[in-house]
């Protein structure tokens, strides 16, 4: 009897369905994360793999654990890392805000487009995903460099008489991030505005509210769930972005993703790189949890 109940509890369909995403998270997120966490407590050595081992078996049943917080202390004491974190947050925040303004405008105008155009317009938003991310960022080099398409156009139109230096500056990084993450902003906002009850806008007009004010008082407040979703989907990956600052940014561009890459591949200091990654994750946990909560609220 007891056995029966137990098997019912564990193997019923509901639990099986819930188990799938949890298993997914366990294998593809938690497990790798624990490995990174373990490495971050090790010391770099010249070997394969290039770090000291975490567990030591010296004959007894339980292994002894050899962990050092040296990497964390090092990161917190060296202002380079702190600056890189702060600068990453700043770049991610500013590009998220720019993406929000542009993305909201695009999402809003798609909802206002005639029905037969909407599908095509949405397709155009998603279309860039069909080309590799790396290639698209490379393409921006061709546009932004001194003798690139943008400068060619500006010069030939006579708008400037000197080519602009955009390549290898933070401006290029902003352009790259905004361009790359725009669809992640547009899609949730679009979904949100599209399902909004149109009679609310009419009710506001009916009560004497001008269209522009209606937009601020009704449309924007009601699309906050979409705005939050879009902002988190852009902000979180943008903080750790590596490819864009590496390809488009210059010496002035300090981003934690780039620091991580250097520690990992140039210095081959896996433990330090792991510690950098763990701290980055810890920093993002708060916004991620907040995002999770806002999504739950939106569902209920």
């Amino acid at each position, binding site marked *: 009897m007891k056995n029966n109940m137990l098997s019912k509890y564990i193997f019923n369909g509901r639990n099986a369905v819930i188990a799938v995403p949890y298993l997914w998270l366990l294998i593809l997120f938690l497990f790798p994360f624990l490995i990174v966490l373990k490495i971050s407590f090790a010391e770099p050595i010249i070997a394969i793999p290039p770090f000291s081992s975490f567990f030591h078996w010296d004959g007894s049943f339980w292994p002894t654990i050899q962990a050092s917080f040296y990497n964390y202390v090092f990161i917190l004491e060296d202002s380079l890392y702190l600056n890189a974190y702060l600068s990453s947050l700043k770049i991610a925040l500013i590009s998220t805000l720019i993406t929000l303004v542009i993305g909201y405008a695009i999402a809003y105008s798609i909802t206002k487009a005639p029905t037969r155009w909407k599908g095509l317009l949405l397709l155009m938003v998603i279309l860039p995903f069909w080309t590799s991310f790396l290639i698209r960022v490379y393409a921006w080099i061709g546009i932004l460099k001194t003798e690139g398409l943008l400068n060619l156009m500006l010069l030939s139109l006579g708008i400037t008489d000197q080519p602009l230096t955009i390549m290898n500056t933070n401006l290029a990084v902003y352009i790259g991030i905004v361009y790359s993450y725009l669809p992640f902003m547009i899609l949730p906002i679009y979904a949100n505005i599209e399902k909004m009850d149109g009679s*609310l806008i009419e009710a506001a*007009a009916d009560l004497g509210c001008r269209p522009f004010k209606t937009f601020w008082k009704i449309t924007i407040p009601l699309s906050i769930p979409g705005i939050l979703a879009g902002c988190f989907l852009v902000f979180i990956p943008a903080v750790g972005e590596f490819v864009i600052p590496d390809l488009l940014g210059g010496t002035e561009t300090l981003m934690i993703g780039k620091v991580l890459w250097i520690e990992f591949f140039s210095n081959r200091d896996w433990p330090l790189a792991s510690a950098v990654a763990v701290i980055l994750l810890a920093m993002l946990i708060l916004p991620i949890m907040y995002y999770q909560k806002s999504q739950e609220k939106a569902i209920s």
Partner: protein
Amino acid sequence: MNEIESETTKLSSDKPYIQFQNVSKKFGNFTAINDLTLDIFNNEFFSLLGPSGCGKTTLLRMLAGFEKPTNGRILLEGEDISNIPPHLRPINMMFQSYALFPHMTVEKNIAFGLKQDKLPSNKINQRVDEMLELVELTEFSKRKPNQLSGGQRQRVALARSLAKRPKLLLLDEPLGALDKRLREQTQFELMNIQEKLGITFIIVTHDQEEAMTVSSRIGVMDSGNVIQVSTPNNLYEAPATKSVAEFIGNVNLFEGVYKGFDDIGTKLKCEHSESIVYSSQSIDAKNGSKIWLAVRPEKLEIFKSPPDYKYNILKGTIIDIGYGGSFSTYHVKLPNGNMISVIRANRERTSEKSITWNDEVYLHWSSKSAVVLTE
């Protein structure tokens, strides 16, 4: 009936408050409103009554400014409003779906329109309190719409649309979501409010009982047009067409041909009677043209033996009796197979000589209570 007609003419002599002049509205190829002309007067409680999809909401939306007429003009106090945007019209609407702002409290919802008028805040608060009191929601002022019941939401919507003291209030099926009891109660509340505030109400409904109860005049609509505009009483007693007669209450229709007019009234040769039947109403028709005689179920008398009348007698068999508490509905089958319904008040609790199934009965109506229809 003369009395009713004079009442209608008295209204028409005033200057109309709203005029629809040959208004048409097309959605693509589909004509939702077809060359409609209608006058509505100040202080009226006017109902638009018609089956679902006949264009009632479209008509209201054109008044509120959310749709533009494809053709024709809409005048408010004699001025064309076709080009005035909704937010500048002195008209408020209570939406079919209520359209309450979900992110605002009851209080804020009601204050929204007043804030657009830039009223001082103490004035706004005072008006909001007044409105909350009117709809008896004072203790719910801090709640959000999703924390209210359907009936409460509907009252917030009403309060919000009344808060600006519009001269004209449009109500689109305002009581659709309420149960019968609450509905009847709210109907009387609406009538009280309309009287108290002196606002012109235009209410859309597909419920003829509701329209009859609340309104001073009813416009009966069918597929994009108004077929008849009149007082509830007049619509019931003197419908202009077959479709109005059928839409307002129940009716028995006798099809036949016009046989002229004598001292009893209009003569009709029925398809299912040897004799001629009469209505005292005179019409302008050619001899032999097809006409209908409409008799309401409660205007028919029912007898077990041939009554002592010279005309308007039909013989039939009782097929079914529907007990309705205060009244019973008798379904009588005529020799040609047509069914006639007769309503009789149940005056006694149980009648010894009551009529039962399969009884042969005789029906009679007074020629004054039959209406002749030509279309």
